């Protein structure tokens, strides 16, 4: 590994100015669990490494009533897994966090890192997409908020400009009678990277047994994490029925565009999207009924 020049900015501003100064030659280190592997395998050889780890105030989970949820970009995955704020309405986030890699990785890896690395299989993306999350970026040109849906461009590629950092993840408030479920399908168990990741968030109109709002997001089955919008539209406003859920699962599967790789064939992945979506919607429904 190396050599590189190493920086530890104390503030976001300092980090941004370093990014501006060193541009493409610089890489940001948050938890380091992806970056160090890439450097070790000599996939990337950055000349400058900027560790954000010493910047204070970017590690938080704030629950703010009507305004929703804000997560500091440097919050570790383990922090999310354990956060008391994520035990009810936003349980799907801690659920996904608990499925990400190993405990030793989760203790270092950050939510910002997981999203900015933009792996199609990133475990944190589907639940945050299904919760209609957005990310707050800051750079020389100032701050901007980008819906997560628009943040991912391709495998490893995002809308982040070379001089920008992600500082916060924002999730709108969750209405009553909402439940969410993330299911990760691996080569075996939940170990390793996702072969398929499915997040479903369902808001229920309890009186009429109608899907008031449905959001479905998928990981590892397209160049970026995606939403299954046709399936969402199919369910929204409709009376809940097993047949309809099955249909939505099929449509979700059609919306995915997986490839063959070492973790599974496209055909198997499409099938698992169907199976896991069906399960995730039903699981989310059950939770929605209970809250």
């Amino acid at each position: 590994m190396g050599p590189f020049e190493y920086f530890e900015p104390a503030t976001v501003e300092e980090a941004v100015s370093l990014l501006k100064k060193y541009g493409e030659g610089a890489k940001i280190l948050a938890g380091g669990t992806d970056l160090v592997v890439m450097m070790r395998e000599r996939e990337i050889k950055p000349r400058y490494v900027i560790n954000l780890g010493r910047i204070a105030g970017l590690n938080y989970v704030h629950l703010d009533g009507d305004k929703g949820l804000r997560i500091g970009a440097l919050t570790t995955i383990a922090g999310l897994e354990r956060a008391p704020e994520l035990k009810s309405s936003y349980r799907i986030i801690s659920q996904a966090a608990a499925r990400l890699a190993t405990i030793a990785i989760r203790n270092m890896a950050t939510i910002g890192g997981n999203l900015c690395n933009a792996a199609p299989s990133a475990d944190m993306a589907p639940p945050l997409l299904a919760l209609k999350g957005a990310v707050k970026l800051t750079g020389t040109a100032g701050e901007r908020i980008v819906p997560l849906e628009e943040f991912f461009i391709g495998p490893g590629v995002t809308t982040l400009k070379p001089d920008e950092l992600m500082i916060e993840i924002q999730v709108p408030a969750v209405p009553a009678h909402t439940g969410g479920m993330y299911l990760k399908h691996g080569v075996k168990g939940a170990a390793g990277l996702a072969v398929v990741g499915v997040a479903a968030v369902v808001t229920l109109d309890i009186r009429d047994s109608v899907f008031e709002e449905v959001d479905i997001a998928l990981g590892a089955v397209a160049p970026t994490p995606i939403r299954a919008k046709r399936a969402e539209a199919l369910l929204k406003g409709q009376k809940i029925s097993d047949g309809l859920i099955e249909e939505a699962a099929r449509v979700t599967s059609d919306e995915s565009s997986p490839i063959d790789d070492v973790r599974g064939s496209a055909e198997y992945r499409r099938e698992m999207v169907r199976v896991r979506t069906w399960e995730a919607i039903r699981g989310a429904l059950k939770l929605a009924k209970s809250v």
Partner: protein
Amino acid sequence: MKQRLELKLNGEMREVFVEPWRTLAEVLRDELGLLGTKVSCGTGDCGACNVLLEGKVVSSCLVLAPQAQGREILTIEGLATPEGLHPLQEAFIEHFAVQCGYCIPGMIITAKACLDENPDATEDEVRLAMSGNLCRCTGYVKVTEAIMAAKEKMKKSVSGTGYGKGR
């Protein structure tokens, strides 16, 4: 390019000068002679290099040396006290949890973190917490047995010997 690195290592302040691209595993092994921490995969997938950083288990092959600057590290060498072995170490011996032994330091360190956080962990919870530590020899049966036995011992000795949380 070498930078000063200060660690509170196994309860003792240590100072070394290393390049920033050295990993914590390399610093421990090559600079500080603590060879108990093993490197097996180099990509954070096997748990052999796990150590505690501020009480939390991390894969030291993925931590850059400066990320550990000024922080508290516990390695396998720091687990026993002058009074004796840690209950996990005793249990690993008694329950035949050791074979080739290359993964064992990482196993014991991860198990300590698991039980520190969850002193009443069930077998399922232990298996989940330990699932990032790979072993090709044992099939994990006796390792799980050892951790469950150590759990009981640790619960009993929490107030007495100071083997409980932290350190």
